[in-house]
């Protein structure tokens, strides 16, 4: 069965990418919420927030990118849930194909769809005055972090996608994730926060990821943030992957 894994995954990836392109609204909805947040924070609150950075949109963008992925993966869970419920999974699983390619096709689709949304959000940020003098290597590093982060959250989304009882249940896990950036350095520097909140903000994954991307954009010294950020992404990825594949094995008996 191994010999078909790549071919089967490619065929199934083609299928779910067709789902994505046939419902362009999902990409737009995924991008609209973070874009609206970016407009709100830059033009409404931005004037009153002092970050010590010359351009607030440049300060804000890394956090907005994470929010984009957090909202995008609810569609990953939704697409998986639909396949589980409609019996399409059972059809595929009763066929002589590499079973794991059914899941991998969803994961890769999630990655591609989220990367498209991220490009849209960066495009809007550029129009709003986001500027970076970062070179190609720094951009590649940002892309690498975002891919790792998207994969980590995608495998997280797989768990409710496979196990949820209702559509609402499949998507609801994304809300707390979208809230995490507010308790981090994404919108304001953590220095002004009261003690315990500050301790939480400075030690949760979003802050180190945001700081690392921000440093890459502004060509500031990276310090430890990049390693802490990578550690978080890889750690979350390993844990969610383990739970998701265990849930998958239980489902397919």
């Amino acid at each position, binding site marked *: 069965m191994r010999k078909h894994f790549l071919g089967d995954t490619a065929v199934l990836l083609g299928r779910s990418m067709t789902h994505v392109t*046939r419902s362009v609204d999902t990409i737009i909805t995924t991008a609209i919420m973070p874009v609206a947040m970016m407009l709100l924070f830059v033009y409404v609150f931005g004037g009153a927030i002092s970050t010590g950075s010359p351009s607030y949109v440049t300060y804000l963008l890394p956090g907005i990118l994470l929010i984009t992925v957090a909202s995008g993966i609810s569609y990953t869970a939704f697409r998986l849930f639909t396949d589980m419920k*409609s019996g399409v999974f059972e059809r595929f*699983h*009763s066929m002589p194909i590499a079973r794991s390619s059914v899941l991998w096709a969803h994961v890769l689709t999630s990655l591609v769809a989220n990367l498209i949304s991220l490009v849209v959000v960066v495009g809007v940020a550029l129009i709003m005055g986001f500027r970076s003098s970062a070179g190609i290597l720094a951009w590649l590093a940002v892309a690498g972090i975002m891919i790792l982060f998207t994969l980590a959250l995608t495998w997280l989304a797989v768990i409710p996608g496979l196990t949820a009882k209702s559509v609402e249940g499949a998507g609801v896990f994304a809300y707390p994730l979208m809230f995490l950036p507010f308790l981090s350095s994404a919108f304001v520097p953590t220095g002004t926060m009261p003690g315990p909140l500050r301790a939480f903000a400075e030690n949760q994954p979003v802050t180190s990821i945001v700081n690392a991307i921000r440093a890459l954009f502004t060509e500031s010294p990276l310090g430890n943030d990049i390693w802490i950020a990578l550690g978080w992404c890889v750690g979350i990825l390993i844990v969610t992957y383990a739970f998701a594949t265990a849930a998958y094995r239980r489902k397919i*008996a």
Partner: protein
Amino acid sequence: MTTVIRVQGMEKSYKDLRVLRGVDFEVAKGSIFALLGSNGAGKTTVVKILSTLLKADAGTATVNGFDVAAQPENVRESISLTGQFAAVDEILTGRENLVLVAKLRHLKDPGTIADTLLGRFSLADAGARKVSTYSGGMRRRLDIAMSLIGSPPVIFLDEPTTGLDPQARIEVWDAVRELAGQGTTVLLTTQYLDEAEHLADRIAILHEGRILVHGTLAELKQLLPPATVEYVEKQPSLEDVFLSLVGTNH
């Protein structure tokens, strides 16, 4: 005669609910076998175990000579499943659904295979439309067409004609007979006694977790007291009337 499906002592419980309590039956190559049973009797459970989607708690089952528990990949090479509820991709077109299955079965020329099946199941005009716009019967026909791709030696049909109009039902019956004629072994489940009567070579009744009776239609009829002869005028059945009014190509 070769036995293609052999089930011995199959048991399955969902938590405390003992659904299958020792099911035994055999299906001969190229025959049509109907599993009858009321709602919740466990027909779908049997089909899922035989198509490797579910593991039995006890007993053995072989399909095409392969053990469903020990050699599931070989079993999947030998079968195709049409589940109780149409498993079609709503967002793709009918034709794309067929092409998808043909590609996953690694067949040459998926496009031609798709077009042939669309024609055979009266879906040629709807082939380019999204399945979400199909009626229930059209979905079911597409679902069955998808299962025929690749001509596997064994086909499982879980209530294939539920929700179909009489004409579509006869189309499905014809397709099933044709398959059996070519040597395909068919196991179908149904709620309709007349479906089993018209179509099946052998019939088994699943009741309270066991096969209650098992045999040809004639053998089952002998279980009842001999019929008394009555003289009645032959009335056309409702089905005859319906078919003559809506016009049929049979």
